[in-house]
């Protein structure tokens, strides 16, 4: 189906969200909680855009808005920029010391009023990407707990989770680098639990936790060699090279 974004016509499929069409066509809609491959979460509210479906204009969040035939979208209006600024201000008040949020605030020229800056700094902006990553790639070890202003991401009862495999997918997707992941002497510490790391059989570097490798092995039904991503790519590349050499 055809939709119009900022006056230009684009093609989209039934079931696609506005964000997916925009990303594919390199149209920038700011967002902190959108990750390609995951469904939209609609949490951070930065991806607000104005849509017109013939009846009336409304403000929607692009990451969860399903496209419809003849949809007209404007990604930037005065109102939208004002709202985005307010949202970034709110995030800045929550995480005044976070460098990623500070950068964003700088881009939008936002200075937070001194009087309202909160003493406690929380790097987590509750975008929910880590929870989604854990649900899709891991073991549902973390989730949103509490509600309202006390909401946070945690393991059950804040205890070290038995389910966590230390894969680090949560830390990987976090847009504000809020999840603490430490590695020391072959031990990875995350969510208050220590995990043994496994060495790559090729290069000898620690690269993944034993629990996460077992988890993947169980899922695939076969035990893979302990080779890190880097070495895997390297060996694949040399295989290619060899096969090309045989052709010519």
């Amino acid at each position: 189906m055809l939709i119009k974004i900022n006056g230009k016509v684009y093609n989209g499929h039934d079931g696609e969200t506005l964000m997916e069409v925009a990303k594919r066509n390199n149209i920038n809609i700011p967002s902190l909680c959108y990750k390609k491959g995951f469904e939209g979460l609609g949490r951070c509210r930065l991806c607000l855009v104005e849509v017109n479906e013939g009846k009336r204009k409304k403000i929607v969040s692009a990451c969860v808005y399903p496209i419809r035939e003849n949809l007209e979208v404007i990604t930037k209006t005065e109102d939208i920029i004002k709202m985005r600024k307010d949202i970034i201000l709110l995030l800045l008040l929550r995480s005044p010391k976070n460098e990623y949020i500070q950068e964003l605030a700088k881009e939008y020229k936002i200075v937070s009023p001194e009087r309202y800056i909160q003493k406690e700094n929380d790097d987590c902006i509750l975008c929910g990407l880590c929870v989604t990553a854990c649900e899709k790639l891991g073991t549902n070890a973390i989730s949103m707990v509490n509600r309202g202003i006390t909401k946070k991401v945690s393991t059950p009862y804040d205890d070290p989770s038995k389910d966590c495999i230390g894969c680090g997918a949560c830390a990987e997707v976090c847009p504000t680098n809020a999840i603490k992941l430490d590695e020391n002497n072959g031990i990875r510490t995350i969510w208050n639990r220590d995990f043994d790391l496994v060495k790559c059989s090729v290069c000898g570097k620690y690269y993944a936790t034993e629990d996460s490798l077992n988890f993947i092995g169980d899922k695939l039904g076969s035990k893979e060699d302990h080779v890190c991503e880097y070495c895997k790519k390297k060996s694949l590349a040399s295989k290619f090279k060899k096969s090309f050499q045989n052709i010519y």
Partner: protein
Amino acid sequence: MNDISNKRKILVCCGTGCLASNSYEVYESLKEKLEINPNIIVQIEIKATGCNGLCEKGPVVKIHPDDISYFKVSAKDVDEIIEKTITNGEIINRLLYFDTNQKKKIINHMDASFYKHQRKIALRNIGEIDPLSIEDYLERDGYKALHKVLFEMEPMEVIDEVEKSGLKGRGGAGFPTGTKWRTCSKFEDYPKYVICNGDEGDPGAFMDRSIMEGDPNTIIEGMIICGYSINSNKGYLYIRDEYELARKNMEFAIDKARKLGYLGENIIGSGFDFDLEIVRGGGAFVCGESSALMASIEGNVGEPRAKYIRSVEKGLWNMPTVLNNVETWANIPPIILNGANWFNKIGTENNSGTKVFSLVGKVKNTGLVEIPMGTKLSELVFDIGCGIIKNRPFKAVQTGGPSGGCIPKEYMDVPLDFDSLSKMGSMMGSGGVIVMDDTTCMVEIARYYMEFLSEESCGKCTTCREGIKMMLNILTNITEGRGQLEDIHILESLGKTIMSASLCALGKTAPNPVLTTIQYFRNEYMDHIVNHKCSAGVCKNLTTYFIEEETCIGCGICKKNCPVNAITGSLKEIHVIDEDICIKCGNCFTACPKDSVKIGGAAYAY
């Protein structure tokens, strides 16, 4: 000896309010003593009923056919009631209700100001039947609408009727019920679901509770009728876990209805199957939001989702779902039975029927009131509510629960309907009406609701969670004497962003209390910020009490009422309050017979 004059029915209110005042003791004592009393030759039926609405004056005992209503009855009044009223037909004056508007005692409660303006549809059976008796419900035309639907109407005819009635959802948003059903009926995706939202969470609202406790069968009947019209065979009742009696009575009614063939397979021989299941709410205010409620039934965290795809298409477990609120369901059987035209004549154009309001706050009569849509707010507060407690000056009314708005006394003639309230910046919500007098600080009211919502927001989206938190911080600053003029502008600007950028209706309406109090009571905000004064005497940092020398008669009452001995002065001489000792409890202010105690501004800069 079986004619009507020798038959008596005694109804004892056993709604939550009356139960808390030991009405069950009254019921049991009446039952026990009537059985053994040799003087009783008449036939007596005694029933424990649901809530009569005027909870404040409970326990309520009604005697038919004499039409005598007694209020504030306790177990020790039982002997006298039996001896005088039941045996000799005498009225006990002491137990009658005193109507402050009519300035007289009322024998039949239906003549009281509180009741005579009401028109009961959703609450029609409550107070008249034993909620645990399906026979009582059947006697008052119960399940007749279901019979009519299953044997005389096509599903589309049912939807037509509901649509024509103009019934709008009574849970808050006011979406047309018939349209909802029709849209859902068009999706050919099965199984479909019917849900009753019984997660009533607005502070001060208890109409849904009252219906579930007092007339559970009307909800069951309404839901089956919907199930038939949209081709669904399964319904869920999501009941707030704090409502134990509501859950118990609903459970009992469902079991009984199933036993009598009104639920389950082949309902009353019609070939239509429908069954109900109760789900206990998790205790979050936000689970009253339809999509959060469905997430909760599914066993997920109670967070709303964006509703760009409506739940009539993809609702519970992604299947087409109709969700209506308790009061909406209670309206369905009478609409089917009496027809859309009958319902349409009640209320106003575009706002047909009645609405139940829970009238609370600084008003003389508090309780549940069902009135035609479009009734003026002033009628509700002064004719039904009988005005303000102690006849203090009336200031404002807050409608629609924590995310409703405050309407000042200048607009008291606003008709109570969905459209008029929205125009005022407030909303119908579930029908909570909180009356405020001159001792209410409007800035503190706004702060209080932001505090409530900061805890009860689900916390999913930034604007609602962080926005409410920032508004709360600003309002706390103002009420504690640290406000600045720019704060008002920030509140207004941020409020607008929260309203348009939030994910669900809770966030979109959350700034209402702040924005309406700024709109209608800007002078109070200015008083707090510029003059450092809270004229209602609520914000402690911005209040001092002093005694006006000209009018003080030196009676010493203020001194006697001061808990911290901050007041000095001999009898018949002017009294003085020591600011340093005073804890600003306001006892002297309310106790002074000459109104000589005055409220001043802050003693210090904060």
